[in-house]
């Protein structure tokens, strides 16, 4: 495989990502996924990406535009780029356009993984040999040496001291006068590029001899390419050249060299762009941020479309998301326009925080170079096809459509409604079984937790029968460490039960916050959970869904086991339940996975897995798929806790290990045994 190690998978489709990860992962490549342009650029900047495999679309940009962007970037253009497209999208995808923009190949799946790998290996091998050939000339290309000439005169050597998107300061003995048209020659590895600009001023040294010049290139495309390349080579410092600046065209006014480059450049109009490349938010008094779209910008001013109104003269802040992170730029409202009542307002902002704005300005320029190209705006057949799609992307980006599962919408629709004696106040969470709400008991005037069973389950007669039967048993549970069930009901065909409202945090939230819970505290929680579950077992009930999210710690520090939604009572005359698998994969016992009869020792296993997670910060088994995790429960011995973290007492590690024994008979047989062992 040589030195090729990292493949970036850029796609919004999880399916493509899965397919590609599987194919390339199995060949030993490191696979980095990215779903947005920003994520992809961050990955490219932070990792040494050897190959980009791109799907038809990223979340915020079509793959073809991502390719165009990269191929216009001297730093990244050399990274081989391959499209991996599903055959059903073949019609939508313009292979010719992709290849003409510089894609190495377009692969279509489902195809044999072997074929894809063979092609990828070939591409990487070819690229590697090209790189070797080019390495010899790369040293020269990183230098900032240029040659300057006015039209029809000889070339003079100079060195770029600082540079921006639109201009540069060059240390050179070149003589001329302000306003002269000058050419700048720069040697790239692949050849010479000439940019044409206007000489803005000349710097004079001690002997009144020219030591440098300032040149403004306006929107010269070649200069932009040189500028990007110099930036990528790390030559973007704002070093000053010592000397005094002189504008010689009919004026004796002298400037410092930094001032002289601050002429406002012509604004860039984004109104015709396929989409606005960054999201800008505008706050009022620092606490309400609203989305905005940049319509036009220059190095001094921005026209933003935003729902936020304001007044001329008011300060305004704009939050800009750049590759390197988020910055907040201060400005002042100059003018507000509201041409169409159906559209948000247009606000013209004069930038007051110029230094910060330059970062956003450069970023915008780089993006717009790609996005505002002729082909993108007016262009050919292949590009037009993307414009509408991009606009849709924009609409969604500006006001993200809540991509709600239909069940989640159903739960949300219940907020503010009344069910029997209970008012539904707020949705606390939702899972496969149903939604959990904060409710209010009208009769007893107290908060309750309401579990509303999903309509899919509650429309099945067998489930409804089981639900009522089991719920009757569960409602008999009355223990300090168990959230008590108050009421079971059915309203408008909706099944629900009301239970004790526990204010606090569950162990899953606690793990999320603290990563690992200290052993001393975890042991207290485990002891309390054992006491609660011992009571449950005493009533011949199995919880069947013990996991961190179902163990709450109240604000006072008490432990409560919650959510008996899938709990079952042993069949009469038996000490075991016939299992129809329920529960969460990371915590499921082997016998539950295999659909065997289960008893309280299945809960003991799940409790062991739960506290393994609590103590170590990770569940006993991790896997790419549910099947991976389940198969490990059946056959793999988890790493010992004390080997993972030396601060976990050996005794505690041994207890958890025994709780996680594969065979129920090898585990603790009662909760009291666990309590004694702890």
């Amino acid at each position, binding site marked *: 495989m040589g030195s090729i190690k990292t493949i970036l998978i850029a796609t919004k489709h999880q399916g493509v990502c899965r397919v590609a990860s599987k194919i390339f992962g199995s060949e030993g490549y490191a696979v980095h996924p990215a779903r947005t342009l920003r994520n992809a650029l961050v990955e490219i900047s932070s990792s040494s990406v050897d190959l980009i495999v791109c799907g038809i679309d990223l979340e915020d940009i079509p793959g073809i535009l991502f390719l165009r962007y990269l191929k216009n970037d001297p730093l990244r253009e050399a990274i081989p780029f391959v499209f991996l497209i599903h055959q059903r999208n073949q019609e939508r995808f313009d292979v010719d356009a992709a290849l003409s923009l510089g894609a190495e190949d377009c692969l279509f799946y489902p195809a044999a993984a072997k074929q894809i790998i063979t092609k990828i290996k070939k591409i990487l091998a070819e690229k590697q040999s090209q790189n070797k050939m080019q390495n010899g000339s790369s040293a020269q290309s990183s230098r900032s040496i240029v040659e300057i000439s006015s039209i029809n005169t000889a070339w003079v050597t100079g060195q770029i001291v600082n540079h921006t998107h639109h201009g540069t300061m060059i240390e050179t003995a070149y003589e001329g006068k302000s306003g002269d048209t000058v050419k700048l020659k720069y040697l790239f590895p692949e050849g010479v590029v000439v940019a044409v600009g206007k000489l803005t001023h000349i710097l004079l040294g001690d002997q009144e001899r020219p030591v440098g010049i300032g040149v403004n290139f306006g929107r010269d495309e070649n200069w932009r390419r040189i500028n990007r390349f110099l930036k990528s080579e790390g030559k973007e410092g704002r070093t000053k050249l010592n000397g005094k600046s002189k504008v010689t065209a009919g004026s004796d006014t002298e400037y410092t060299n930094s001032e002289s480059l601050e002429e406002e450049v012509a604004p860039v109009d984004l109104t015709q762009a396929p989409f606005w490349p960054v999201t800008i938010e505008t706050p009022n008094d620092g606490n309400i941020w609203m989305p905005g779209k940049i319509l036009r910008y220059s190095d001094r001013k921005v026209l933003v479309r935003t*729902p936020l*109104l304001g*007044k001329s003269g008011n300060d305004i802040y704009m939050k800009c998301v750049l590759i390197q992170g988020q910055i907040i730029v201060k400005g002042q409202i100059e003018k507000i326009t509201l041409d169409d009542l159906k559209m948000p307002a247009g606000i013209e902002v004069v930038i007051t925080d110029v230094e910060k704005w330059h970062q956003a300005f450069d970023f915008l320029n780089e993006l717009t170079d790609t996005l505002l190209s002729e082909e993108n705006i007016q262009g050919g057949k292949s590009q037009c096809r993307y414009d509408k799609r991009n606009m849709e992307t924009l609409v969604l980006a500006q006001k993200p*459509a809540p991509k709600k599962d*239909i069940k989640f919408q159903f739960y949300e629709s219940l907020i503010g409604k009344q069910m029997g004696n209970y008012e539904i*106040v707020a949705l606390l969470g939702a899972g496969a079984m149903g939604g959990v709400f904060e409710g*209010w008991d009208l009769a007893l005037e107290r908060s309750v937790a309401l579990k509303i069973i999903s*309509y899919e389950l509650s429309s099945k007669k067998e489930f409804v029968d089981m639900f009522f039967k089991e719920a009757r048993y569960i409602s008999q549970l009355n223990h300090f460490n168990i959230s008590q069930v108050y009421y079971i009901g059915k309203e408008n065909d909706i099944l629900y039960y009301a239970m004790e409202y526990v204010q606090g945090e569950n162990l899953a939230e606690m793990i999320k916050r603290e990563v690992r819970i200290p052993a001393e505290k975890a042991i207290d929680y485990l002891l309390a959970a054992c006491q609660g579950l011992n009571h449950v077992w005493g009533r011949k009930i199995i919880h069947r869904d013990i996991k961190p999210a179902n163990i709450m710690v109240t604000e006072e520090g008490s432990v409560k086991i919650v959510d008996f939604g899938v709990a079952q009572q042993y069949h009469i005359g038996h000490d075991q339940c016939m299992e129809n698998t329920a529960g969460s994969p990371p915590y499921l016992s082997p016998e539950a996975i295999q659909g065997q009869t289960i008893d309280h020792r299945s809960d003991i296993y799940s409790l062991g897995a739960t506290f393994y997670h609590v103590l170590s910060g990770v569940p006993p088994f991790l896997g790419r798929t549910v099947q991976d995790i389940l198969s490990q429960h059946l056959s793999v011995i988890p790493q010992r806790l004390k080997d993972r973290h030396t601060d976990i007492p050996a005794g505690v590690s041994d207890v958890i290990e025994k709780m996680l024994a594969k065979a129920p008979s090898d585990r603790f047989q009662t909760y009291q045994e666990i309590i004694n062992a702890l």
Partner: protein
Amino acid sequence: MSKILVNDCDNPTINAITNFMSSKAEIINRPFSRDLDITEFDMVLLGADGDRETILDKLKHIRYGARFRNIPILLLNPKKSRDQKQFPFLTGAASILSIEEPPEALAQMLQGYLMPSRQPKKFEMEYLTPFIESTKQVFSTMGSMTTNYKGVYFKNDYNLLGDVSGIIGLSGNAEGMVVITFYWDLAQKIISSIMGVEEEEISPELINDGVGELINMISGAAKRYLSESPYLFQLSLPTVFVGWQHEIGHPEKASVAVLMFDIEEKSFAIQVSLTAKDQQNRR
């Protein structure tokens, strides 16, 4: 019995809805109309078999016809492919249902949407009443307008869309925010009346000043009513937003009361989300 308005649905869909809902609600089938006042209905079911622009346009007009009332608008899709139709949520549809869903599940979903809204609790009316009174008073004194309070419900979804909103943050012993939301036609009339200008003279700055001042005065007057209560708060600076059918979001789990008001045939809403720091004790 609840009333369901069915708009632009095909016959099989209407028959299916009638089959499993006729015992629970009165089904009224009418073609879509732009200027229909739908406040007499408890739910609207709109056929979603059409192009995107048409559906969005219909949704917008139905939403105007709902006049800020808590009337769920559900799209009925003949087929199960919902993924391509996420867009209507931007325009206030509560859900997209498919007639291909199991009838029991579909019936239960519809019944869920038809369930009655909860009534405000006593402690909630304690802080809502001052906002109702202050709104009436401010409109009367500033704009010589009579407002009719039409009731309160608790916002349960992103379905209260407006064209102009003024928002003010509340902080102190009680925290939250108050939002006033109008559609353009009433907003223009009110701003014109309050600021003493003709409707055609209304500029962005007048909208900013007028709506900002309105929400500031309503909240200020409510603050005075509540000065002796646990709901003591300070006001932030008002902020005004514009944009056709925008939605103001609220913090997750916040309880948001929507107070509905009419001025003649037009409506506006005030959303109040306020939590006293000792609210748990007050329950």
